[in-house]
C-alpha cells in the first residue's frame, strides 16, 4: 500500500526545510501535494544568496536540500502579489483538503490571505500554520531558523562541557523536528475532517516542538528544582559511557567509537572483549574511576578501526557503534541492506539518491514515486488539468509573469 493517502490534496505554500518536510511526509504516503512558488518569490531553500549568474546556471534546480524535501510533489508557480495569481490560488484551495504555510508572521495578511479567506472558498478546509513560535503570543511575528529554534528551546544547556558555551547539536535541528510535528498536526486534523466534515485552523510552534527532545532536562528541573549540569559525555548512572578514539583508517583521521554500557551484563561482556578493563568493578567503582576507565578503553580502541571494534562488541551485546561521517551514509551497511537510498533520475542533476520513509510495510521500503519537481513543472497539468485553464490563458499568464518556469531576481 504505497498510496495510503490517495484522495487527499494539499496546497503547499511552505518554504525552507520544516514546512516542505511536513508536506513531504504526506506526499510520501500518496497525498497530492501541490507546491506553490512564484518566479520571484521562489523557495529560498533553493538559495538564500541568489544572483543572476546562479539563475543562468540553473542553480535553482541544483539544490540538494530543496530536492531532498520536495520529492513526490507537483509544483506550480503563481505570483500571489498579482490579483490573478491570488485568484487562481483560491480556486486551487477550493479543490483541496488543506493549505499549509510557514511564512514569517505577517506575510499571509500582506497577501490578503488568511484562514477565513480560505474557508470562504472551501468551508471544510484545514489550514496548518507553522511559524517558529506559533501563531499566538508576543513572539508570534518573530523570525527564526532551525538553529534559532534549538537555541530558544533551551536544549543547548543540556549539551557539552560546563566550561564551554551551551552547545548546539545541529545547524537546523528545529527544522526537521518542526517538519515532523507539522505532518503529525496535519494528519490529526485531516482525520477529524474525514470523520466530521469539519475543517479547522491548526497552529504549530516549532520551538515548542523541541521541548519533548529536551524533556529529560525540563522534567529534571520540574521534579527537583535543580538545574541539570552539563557533563559532556558522562552520565551519573552509567560507565563506561563515552566516545573513544579509534585507529585511523586510510583517509579517515577522525575515527571514533561510541560505547554506552547500561547493564552489568553488558559490562561483563565488555570486559571479556577489552582485557584492559579487568581491574574495574561494579558501577560505583567505575563511576568513581571514570577517567582511568576511559583511558583503559581508549588504549584498546586506539589500536582498532572503529568498524572492527563495533563488530567485536556488538557480537557480545555491548551497545557500541562507529561514528559515521556524512560520506559514509550512502554505503552505511544497515541503510544499504534495507534499501534506504532510492535512486531516481531528475532534471538538471541526473541520478540522485533519495531517502526512503523511515517506516515500511514488509521488507521493502515504500517507493519514492518521483523526484522533486522543477520550478513550475506542473503549471499546465495543475492549472490546465485541475482548474481547466485553456492553453491561451496559460500563455497570457506567462506573459504577465504570473506563472513561469524560470526564476527571476526579485524586483523588490
Amino acid at each position, binding site marked *: *500500500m504505497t498510496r*495510503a493517502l490517495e*484522495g487527499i490534496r494539499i496546497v503547499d505554500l511552505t518554504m525552507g526545510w520544516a514546512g516542505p518536510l511536513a508536506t513531504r511526509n504526506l506526499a510520501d504516503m500518496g497525498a497530492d501535494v501541490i507546491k506553490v512558488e512564484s518566479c520571484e518569490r521562489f523557495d529560498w531553500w533553493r538559495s*538564500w*544568496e541568489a544572483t543572476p549568474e546562479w539563475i543562468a546556471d540553473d542553480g535553482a534546480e541544483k539544490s*540538494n536540500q530543496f530536492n531532498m524535501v520536495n520529492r513526490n510533489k507537483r509544483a506550480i508557480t503563481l505570483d500571489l502579489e498579482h490579483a490573478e495569481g491570488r485568484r487562481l490560488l483560491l480556486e486551487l484551495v477550493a479543490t483541496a483538503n488543506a493549505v499549509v504555510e510557514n511564512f514569517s508572521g505577517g506575510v499571509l495578511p500582506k497577501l490578503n490571505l488568511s484562514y477565513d479567506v480560505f474557508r470562504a472558498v472551501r468551508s471544510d478546509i484545514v489550514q496548518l500554520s507553522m511559524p517558529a513560535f506559533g501563531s499566538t*503570543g*508576543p513572539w508570534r511575528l518573530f523570525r*527564526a*531558523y532551525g538553529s*534559532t529554534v534549538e537555541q*530558544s528551546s533551551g536544549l543547548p*544547556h543540556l549539551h557539552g562541557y560546563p566550561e564551554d*558555551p551551551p*552547545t*548546539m*547539536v545541529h545547524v537546523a535541528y528545529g527544522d526537521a523536528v518542526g517538519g*515532523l*510535528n507539522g*505532518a*503529525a498536526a496535519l*494528519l*490529526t486534523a485531516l*482525520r*477529524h475532517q474525514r*470523520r466530521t466534515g*469539519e475543517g*479547522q*485552523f*491548526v497552529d504549530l510552534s516549532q520551538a*515548542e516542538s523541541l521541548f519533548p*527532545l529536551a*524533556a*529529560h*532536562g525540563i*522534567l*529534571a*528541573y520540574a*521534579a*527537583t528544582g535543580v538545574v541539570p549540569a552539563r557533563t*559532556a*559525555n558522562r552520565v551519573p548512572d552509567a560507565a563506561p559511557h563515552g566516545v*573513544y578514539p579509534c585507529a585511523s583508517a586510510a583517509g579517515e583521521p577522525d575515527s*571514533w567509537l561510541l560505547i554506552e554500557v547500561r547493564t552489568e551484563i553488558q559490562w561483563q561482556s565488555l570486559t571479556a572483549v577489552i582485557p584492559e578493563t579487568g581491574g574495574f568493578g561494579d558501577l560505583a567503582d567505575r563511576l568513581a574511576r571514570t577517567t582511568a576507565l576511559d583511558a583503559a578503553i581508549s588504549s584498546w580502541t586506539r589500536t582498532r578501526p572503529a568498524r572492527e571494534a563495533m563488530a567485536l562488541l556488538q557480537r557480545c551485546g555491548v551497545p557500541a*557503534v562507529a561514528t*559515521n561521517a*556524512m*560520506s559514509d551514509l*550512502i554505503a552505511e*551497511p*544497515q*541503510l544499504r*541492506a*534495507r534499501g*534506504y537510498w532510492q535512486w531516481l533520475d531528475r532534471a538538471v542533476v541526473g541520478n540522485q*539518491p533519495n531517502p526512503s520513509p*523511515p*517506516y*515500511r*510495510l514488509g521488507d521493502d521500503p515504500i517507493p519514492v514515486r518521483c523526484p522533486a519537481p522543477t520550478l513550475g513543472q506542473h503549471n499546465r497539468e495543475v492549472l490546465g488539468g485541475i482548474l481547466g485553464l485553456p492553453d491561451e490563458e496559460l500563455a497570457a499568464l506567462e506573459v504577465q509573469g504570473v506563472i513561469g518556469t524560470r526564476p527571476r531576481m526579485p524586483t523588490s
Partner: protein
Amino acid sequence: MSGALGSLRIVDVSGTVATGYCAKLFADYGAEVINLESDGGFPTRSLPPFLPEAQFPEASALHAYLSTNKYSVRAGTLSREECARLLDEADLVLDDGTSTLPVADCRKVRCSISWYGLTGPYAGYAGTDAQCYALNGMLRLIGRIEGPPIMPTGYQAQFVGGITAYIASLGLLLAGELGNRHGPVHLDTSIFESTMCFTDVGAITAHNTGLQASRMGVNRLPPTYPMGVFPCRDGWIGLSVLTPKQWHAFCALLDMNDFAAVPLFQSAIARNEAADVLEPIFSEKLLDLSAEELFYRGQAAGIPLARVPTMEELFGVDQYIERRAFTEATIGDRALTVPSVPFRLFATPPSFGGPVAALGAHDAEYAG
C-alpha cells in the same frame, strides 16, 4: 472519549520512550490509550529523571510525562482470551518488535518501533539514543575540534522515532477511512532511520560534491557564521546570521558598520571560514550587552536572534507562558510541570496535562 482522535483505541505493549511518545500524541487528541504492562511495569517507569520521595513504580517523571490520560492494565491480570481480544480489536498496537504478547493478531494496524528496524544486519543490535546520532553522521560534527564528539543527551532519538511512528500509524488509520487500506498491516519503523531526517541532505551533498564536513568546534556548524550561543551580561544570546541583509543588520546592531560591506563577508560560507577573525570582534561587544535587549532589537531588525533559556528560565518565558507551552501531569496528589503537545488544533484542542495512572489502576475495567 472526545477530540480529533476520540474513537480510536490504541494499545501499547512495550512501554519504551518511542512507543510511549507515539501513544501519548494519540492520547493528547482524545484516543483511548491502554498501557498493557507487565507485572513489573513498563520500562519507562525505571527511567530518570525521578520525582524525589516517590517510590517505584510511580517515581519516574519521564513516565508521568508520557502517560497522562492513558489507562494502565497489567497483562498478567487478563486471561489469555481477554488479552488476545484487546489486541485483536485495537485500532493500533504499538510494540518494539520483541513482545511475547499475541500482537500479530491485531486486525488493523500494528506498528513496531525498534532501534534499527526489523531487518538488516543491525536488527538484533542493542540500541541507544546516542547510537542513532553516531550512525546518522550528526555526532561527529558536535563539540571541540580535538574531540571527542559530544553525545546528545536524553531520549532524543526515541522522541523522533515516536512522532515518526505517529505519522505512519495515523496515516494508515486514515487510509482505512479513505478506503485505501484493506486488512491488517504491520509497520516497521526504525528509530535510526527516523533520525536520518537530520542528515539526509548532508549525505546527499557529500555524495554529490565529495566534500567532507568536519568538526569545526563548539557551535561552529556549516554553512554560516555568526552562529552559536554567546554570553552576554545577563545570560545567553543565540545567533543565526545567514543572508546578506541579516549580516548588514547584525553589523548595525553591534555598531560594526566597517565590517558590513567587506566583500569577503557577504556570503555565509566565507564568513564561516573567517569565523576565527570575526568571533573576537563581536563576542567582546556581546559581553557588555543585555541578551534580553539584543533579542528584541535584533528581531525588530529582522535578525533571527534567540534568548537561550536555562531549564529554570524556560518556565518564565512570556511567549511560552501565554501559549500554555507547559502544563501539569498529576501523579496521585502531586503535580508535575511537563511540556504540552506542540501542535494545536483550534476546533478540537488537545488535552493539557492530566492524570497519570498508577500501575494496574485499570485492571478491573478491562477484565471480563
